[in-house]
Each structure stands twice: as C-alpha cells, then as structure tokens.
C-alpha cells in the first residue's frame, strides 16, 4: 500500500527555543497580546510503500528515532494515511 506520513518534529518542552522566543516577541510587537508562546519545529512528508499499516508505523517510528529527530533535544508526532498512487 502507498502511504503518506506527515511528521512533526519539535524541540522538547525542556529545551529553550530561541527562534520561537524571537517570533513571540515579534507577534507581541504586532499587538497579538493573546500569544503566550511560540515553538518552532519542522514538518516533513514522507511517502512510502509498506505491506501493512503496522509495518508502516514501525518504519516511520524507526526513521524518526534514528535520523529524522535527535532524541536528546527533539520529540515528534506523526499522522499516517493511505494515499492513491
């Protein structure tokens, strides 16, 4: 089956995000006083072929842990969906 994994990588909560802090300041300067915090991350789309959804989950988790994130400072979530070819 053809699948698309939408992967979101963010810095762990305990890790300071200077880019997010700069954007928070910029939003406040634009009077978006409602903004409490901004965290900046990465979004990746991985198209893949797998025999089953279970296998696809395993593959995506594996690639996230080995390469796509650095578990010392980052964490990830993903959505997986079957797509047409």
């Amino acid at each position, binding site marked *: 089956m053809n699948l698309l994994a939408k992967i979101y990588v963010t810095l762990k909560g*305990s*890790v*300071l995000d*200077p*880019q997010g802090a700069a954007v928070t300041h910029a939003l406040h300067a634009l009077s978006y006083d409602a903004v409490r915090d901004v965290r900046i991350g990465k979004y990746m789309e991985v198209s893949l072929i797998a025999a089953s959804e279970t296998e696809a989950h395993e593959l995506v988790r594996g690639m996230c842990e080995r*390469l796509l994130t*650095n578990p*010392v*400072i980052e964490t990830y979530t993903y959505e997986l969906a079957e797509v047409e070819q």
Partner: protein
Amino acid sequence: MRCAVVQFPGSNCDMDAVKAINHAIGESADIVWHTVASLEAYDLIILPGGFAYGDYLRAGAIARFSAVMEAVAHEAERGKWVMGICNGFQVLTEGGLLPGALRRNESLQFRSEIATLEVVNAETAFTRHYRAGETIRIPIAHGEGNYYADEQTLLRMRERGQIVFRYAREHNPNGSVDDIAGVINERGNVLGMMPHPERAVHERLGSADGARLFTAIFESWREAYAKR
C-alpha cells in the same frame, strides 16, 4: 604518530587541521575520505569543521551515518584518540560518541570571533599541557554551538570531569548550558569542542594557545607507544 583528518563533502577546516598538526608537532596527516571503511592505521583521528552534507536536517545528522563513522566508532572503542572540532563535535554528538546535543545559538546569529575559554579539566590526554583554570584564547565560528544535555547527564559529566572547556564567565557566545565549550567521553579518548584549536597554532593567527592540544596528544601517544 599517524594522524587522519576525515573529509566529508562539505568539510572546510580539513586542511587547517593538517597544517596545525604539521606546524605544532611536525607530523604529517592524511586526509581520509568519508567512504573509507577502516582507520586502523591511525593513532589520532580528527573530524574537522565545516558543513558536512550541507548540515541538512541537523548539523552532523547525515554525516554520522557515513561509512567512515563506523570506523571512527570502532577505533574509539579500541582506545584511539578522536577529536571532533566544531562540525566534527556535532557529528560526534549526533553519532552518540559524546553525550548531549548542539542547538542553534541562542542569539540565532553565526558567531565568528576569538573566544576566551577556561580549561576545566587539564588531566586529559588532550589538555595535559594546560593548567586547570587557565584562560586560553581560541577562535569560534559557528551558528549551532549551543550545547545541551539534561540535568542528570550534566551532573554525571561534572562528577567524571567530562566538561573539559568552558567559555569564560559572562562570555558565553551561544547560550550553552553550563557555559560548555568542549566535552570528553568517560573513557577520556574522544574529545569534542566547538572552538577551533587548529586555527590558533601561531601568534600570527591571533593566538597560539591551540598548539598545546596537539603537543599534548603527541606526548600522550609517545608515552603509550613507549609502553608497547
């Protein structure tokens, strides 16, 4: 002493490292391409600065999976000396040969300047020619040198003398936790540092303080060699 300087696509301080070795200890060094599978012939392996594989995804993230890194891990396991400078340090943390990670500088700016460092541990094979607490001047040039390790890891590193260099108090250029500029593994044979000692081996370069890192490792090698 046989020295290797690993060259990744995107390395740019490789020749500086070779010349620093030539100048500081009078030894030659081989440039070794990232596809090499064995580094058995070498006593000292340097991972130089630069932007290996463009630093895509994260600095060092792709380089750590290159063939040569298996050889580096293998030689580190055997007790050979490995030194990662700047991008090389990032590759070593990504590869798990050193604890922690290097984040984007807190200022979000690339910093290129001479940094003042404090030698925290002068008892390693790399730092024995410094005095503990000594202040040295070594250039930095990086955008992602903001060292991070969680509290528990830091505690353990402090206890074991793994913090080797700190930026001088009030002069932390990148936001590193605990002002950390360089760390060593528990065994004491793998060193990583953001500052560039290879760019500070002669007064004409602005500082000669980096030369003693090379003379120290040379003396450590001579002692080890004499025992063989």
